[in-house]
């Protein structure tokens, strides 16, 4: 079993069954890990980084609770092997607030009571930021469809949509 690791993972194939070097920028901070390739990005964040804001709701890409932004795009972190994201910028819920000021989505979610138990909330908010970044959804129907990858068993959907529409309108007005 070949256990070589290469520090510069960008040019060479890395061939190993043990830990690999992974470099990520997590919420603006450069991080380096030695992890096995079978660790998901979700488990890396929760168990290795202790950033438990990102939630595990199903672990199979069927609920969206694990949504984070990777290079600005929303994905399900439970189906991403962390090692595949080498070099990427990862933004989690913990990285959205700036200097203790709540992100507009966080404030809107609170104002519209777009949360109850709070477990799907980080995923909803990261997904909403991803939606805004994508720049496609504008109407209420478009937002509802575009947020359908985030389940909420507490049933906050109408409030979630209200919150996102408010932020979209704010952004549009800017």
């Amino acid at each position, binding site marked *: 079993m070949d256990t070589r690791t290469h520090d510069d993972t960008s040019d060479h194939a890395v061939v190993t069954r043990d830990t690999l070097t992974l470099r990520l920028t997590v919420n603006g901070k450069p991080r380096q890990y030695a992890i096995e390739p079978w660790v998901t990005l979700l*488990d890396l964040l929760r168990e290795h980084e202790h950033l*438990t804001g990102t939630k595990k709701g199903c672990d199979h890409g069927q609920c969206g609770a694990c949504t984070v932004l990777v290079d600005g795009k929303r994905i399900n972190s439970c189906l991403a092997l962390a090692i595949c994201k080498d070099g990427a910028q990862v933004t989690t819920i913990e990285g959205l607030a700036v200097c203790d000021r709540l992100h507009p989505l966080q404030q809107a979610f609170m104002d519209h009571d777009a949360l109850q138990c709070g477990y799907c909330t980080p995923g909803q908010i990261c997904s909403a930021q991803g939606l805004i970044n994508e720049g496609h959804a504008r109407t209420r129907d478009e937002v509802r469809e575009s947020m359908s990858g985030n389940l909420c068993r507490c049933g906050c959907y109408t409030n979630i949509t209200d919150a996102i529409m408010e932020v979209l309108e704010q952004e549009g007005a800017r």
Partner: protein
Amino acid sequence: MAISSGTGVRIGDPVNRVDGVAKVTGRARYAAEHPAPDLLYGWVVSSAIAKGRIVAIHDHAAREVPRVVEVITHLNRPDTPQSDSCYKDDVAPPGRPFRPLYDERILFNMQPVALVVGETLEAARYGASLVEVEYAAEAHNTDFRTALDERFVPREKRPMFEQPQNRGDARSAYARASRKLSAEYHLPIHFHNPMEMHASTVVWEGGGKITVYDKSQGSQNVQRYLAHAFGLALEDVRVMNQYVGGAFGSGLRPQYQTYLATLAAKKLARSVRVVLTRQQMFSHVHRPEAVQSVALATDETGRLQAIVNDATTSTSRFEDNMETVCDWGLMNYACPNAAAESTIARIDTYTSGDMRAPGAATGMTLFEMAIDEMAYEAGIDPLQFRLTNYSDKNAMEDSPFTSKALRAAYLQGAAAFGWRKRTAEPRSMREGRELVGWGVATGMWEALYQKMPARVKLLPGGEIEVSAATSDIGTGTYTVMAQVAADTLGLPLEKITVRLGDSDLPKSPVEGGSRTAASIGAAVQAACQQVAEKLRAAKGRIEKPIEVEVTPSGDLAGKDKSRATHSAVFAEVRVDEELGVVRITRIVSAVAAGRIINPKTARSQILGGIVMGVGMALHEEGLIDHGLGRFMNHNFAEYHVPVNADIYDIDVIFVDEPDSEVTPLGVKGVGEIGIVGTAAAILNAIYHATGKRVRSLPATLDKLL
């Protein structure tokens, strides 16, 4: 320092949730998120058969996995008690509670048969996939329809089961009547599926003490359960559930991961975390399957003459779970003759349990579908039918309510919905390629009150700490407690800290049944009043904290009266006439629930119940392969809960319903009323749109082709 009124928040203000910041920033920690030194991870291995015995377990390969520390099975588990009473929690129904990993017997499919413990989640997960179990299968039955043949009335019933009370002679009155209807309705098994999977982190504190972070609706119930099951002193077990990712009843009883994590911690003298997979969330508690037979009869003017409302719900072979299913129909309508029989039938699953509005979400919903059919049979508008047969009092117990503003709810809801414009004939309303249907149904739920303590501590700097062992499962308990304190003491919310979800705090029962706001609210108010008195006595100046723990005393006024919340739910559906696709485009729910502490969070509770009602009506169903005795759609991809695109406009109206008797604060609780009757309003609307009566939920498109 003075406590002035008018500066703070009042009861009735729609303030933002006080735990909102913790939740939107991701700082709130749920059961699987509390760190512990040297933490081990346990991964559950689940049975592949529904009934029989484990013949052998081959765990050699699992043990060989690097960083796997142990494989625990019934063969090597620590000694655990022999008596059933040690495994019974406060909410357990009569019977023999399940003992995880106790012996070789398999009682239900996906029963836990081993726990693989590893230094990392990945090691435990991989090890679990390598455990091979040999079974000797026995004949099983998961088919409720055949189980019905052996339905029975259990001798020992759950304490909270309310026996239906018959009146008059319903069966004769039915036989005599000119207009009648008899039909059978069916509800499949539903799973709670809160977004947070069941999880426990057991922290091995040393000295025989453990702290358990659990996904639970009652930390003290779990504390007692673990103490009894593992022979620990109560003071050596601390259970914390400060943030719970939804529960809807699935956290009333400890689930098996709590037991397994504690078992492993005890065996290994280390901290252990066990998180169930989403698939395993289909291996335990669920809303029971139900068949309800309803016979109704009216006279020529549409007045009800007979109600027969029999229901059978499912339970396991080892415990007798039972719900109050039949009473709602008997309580809600004026009718001289009514009879009901509530029975249960056994299938080889885990024991069914309470899921949001247990009994009523089933029994009132299915009954309201029958009422709709009867209205049509009698040629009367369904809303008018309900008004014609309205009962001001509890028709089953013949007792007045402390308040019942259901009539106002019907009228206000109808006005907001535009019910007046409805044309009665099915298939008479359409737009484009869609048939439009408007349906109505009644909701009812009990408004209970339980005396419980709250502790309030006033610090010299003017800050307040309010504590109780109760829970907030998304229901807004944190905010309710803070808001009542703010109102009573005239303080801003920023000065108030709420502590809950900790078995060390003042004694609370499990959070369920929509009683918490009323009960803990009253306790917080009483405790704050005492603090205010002490502060006045000290002339507004204190050097040391004032701390009181108060349980409201005295009886409720109108003790013998009935106490309930009511709602009138209106739904508009649009059904594609060719393809059977249903869109629920408008719902109006007018709720009479007494005094509303926080209209913002209360509205969310109703919205949540309504969305679950949508799931009941159109989507949710545990699909069982009866040959295997196994739920096949055990994941979020194939067990469908509503998504955002399924939910259109929902309007919630809180009907004015002052009530000085129901509970000390006049509060009734709104956690469950939202789901009751909602699916019926939708199914009734589907009938109005299509002329098709769907009596077996969910109304999937194949039933409408």
